[in-house]
């Protein structure tokens, strides 16, 4: 049974939208404060913590030695997974990964993978025998809204600051993982009838459609995803795509500022 509160909240958001306002006082295309820390966690070869409004997310990178697939003997592999564990919000329950958690992991994964920022051939150690498997795990610790963007940011920041632990595996010297670009995600939700950037928790309660856009360094699209119930027009999409270009560029600079530390 649906609780009644979301409906009241929905009306309030609607009322504010009519005045071009948001429930937390932000402008329609304004982002909450974002804090990024890297290299915090012992045992992770790369790690990042993103504090994005009330949202807190960690990402960690681990490496393993693998035998390459026979049809791609020089290619390593990349895997990105996200867990929406019950620690993150009262609404998440224990159990097998929910559709929400699978979608989150796959959308973040596609944004990074499809940007081509990791050259799979660069993960080869001995062709046909040994390649690196790179695994990024994202742990959502506090869901205060817009976890997609926070997870995407944590993942690429952990990756761009990761050290390949070659010495521990006895295959050469430790070195920085080569990551050639910085794909960034920007998410939009319909709240009060119009799209807004970076929805907070209250704005997500409406449950209307979300659009996730991942842009690479050259402002090419690498991943799109429409989630939740609702329809949108090509014109609406064109408008948010413009916002995404600006926002992604700013966050790309934030990631760059943490590298080489």
């Amino acid at each position, binding site marked *: *049974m649906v609780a009644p509160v979301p409906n009241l909240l929905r009306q309030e958001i609607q009322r504010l939208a009519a005045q071009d306002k948001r429930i937390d006082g932000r402008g329609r295309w304004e982002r909450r404060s974002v804090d990024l820390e890297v290299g915090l966690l012992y045992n992770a070869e790369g790690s990042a913590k993103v504090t994005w409004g009330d949202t807190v997310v960690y990402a960690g990178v681990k490496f393993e030695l693998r035998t390459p697939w026979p049809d791609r003997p020089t290619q390593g592999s990349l895997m990105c997974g996200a867990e929406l564990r019950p620690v993150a919000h009262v609404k998440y329950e224990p159990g097998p990964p929910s559709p929400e958690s699978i979608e989150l992991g796959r959308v973040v994964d*596609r944004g990074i*993978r*499809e940007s081509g920022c990791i050259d799979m051939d660069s993960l080869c150690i001995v062709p046909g025998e040994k390649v690196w498997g790179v695994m990024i795990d994202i742990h959502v610790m506090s869901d205060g809204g817009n976890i997609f963007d926070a997870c995407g940011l944590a993942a690429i920041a952990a990756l761009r600051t990761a050290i390949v632990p070659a010495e521990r595996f006895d295959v050469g010297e430790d070195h920085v993982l080569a990551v050639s670009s910085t794909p960034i995600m920007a998410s939009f939700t319909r709240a009060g009838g119009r799209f807004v950037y970076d929805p907070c928790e209250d704005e997500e309660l409406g449950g209307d*459609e979300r659009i996730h856009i991942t842009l690479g360094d050259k402002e*090419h*699209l*690498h*991943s799109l995803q429409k989630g939740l119930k*609702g329809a949108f027009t090509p014109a609406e999409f064109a408008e948010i795509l413009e916002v995404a270009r600006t926002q992604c560029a700013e966050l790309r600079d934030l990631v760059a500022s943490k590298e080489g530390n």
Partner: protein
Amino acid sequence: MMGGYGDVQLLKEDGTRLDGRAVDEMRPVEIKVGVLPAAQGSAWVKQGLNVAVCAVYGPMEAHPRKIQRQDRAVLDVRYNMAPFSTGERIRPGFNRRAREISKVTAEALESVVLLERYPRSKIRVEIEILAAEAGTRCAGITAASMALADAGIPMRDLVVGIASGKIQDTVVLDLDKAEDNYGQADLPAGICPNTGELVFLQMDGDLSIEEYNLAMEYNFKAAAEIHEIMVAALAAKYGGGEA
């Protein structure tokens, strides 16, 4: 999307594709409704060599009660690939890819079904892929909206699933298997032919904004063509205009 597109020639010198299609030409589409006697509504969609079959059950009482919605029906959608539908057999069971597609397909259909007509109830939509040749999620969405129509479930509009993509730096409509394997981008969409809205959208690979715009233009054009085939299929069964 693979990155190895440089090695594989997918366009011929005359600009047509390996199977002879023009860049903005889709594969042949066949549609039938009412194919599964045990279901309330059903549909069969063949697009190229893809075969998607969908059964709809309900509206029925939603249980357990905690999934009920006071003010509307819930859609319970499953997208499943038969073990023999792919080149290499896939193990039965619901994998992560199938769960994601089921979720976004459900959300696409929720955007058009008049769920508010059936409070506290559930409608089950079962999409089975019997043969897969790239583009199964789109064929599944088309099949699902046809099966819902066949079951007499009221909808604001039908949904047409269709994808465009990019091969050899060229935007093309409706990727086939080789194009999907060696292409550079895929842009599947769910289009409402009457309202012109999108209710489903995914994309992966690499597209400039201009390429995106062209790919989406192809999608809208194809959606109109497929819509005619859908209407004809319903007319074939119900002897008239669109449901």
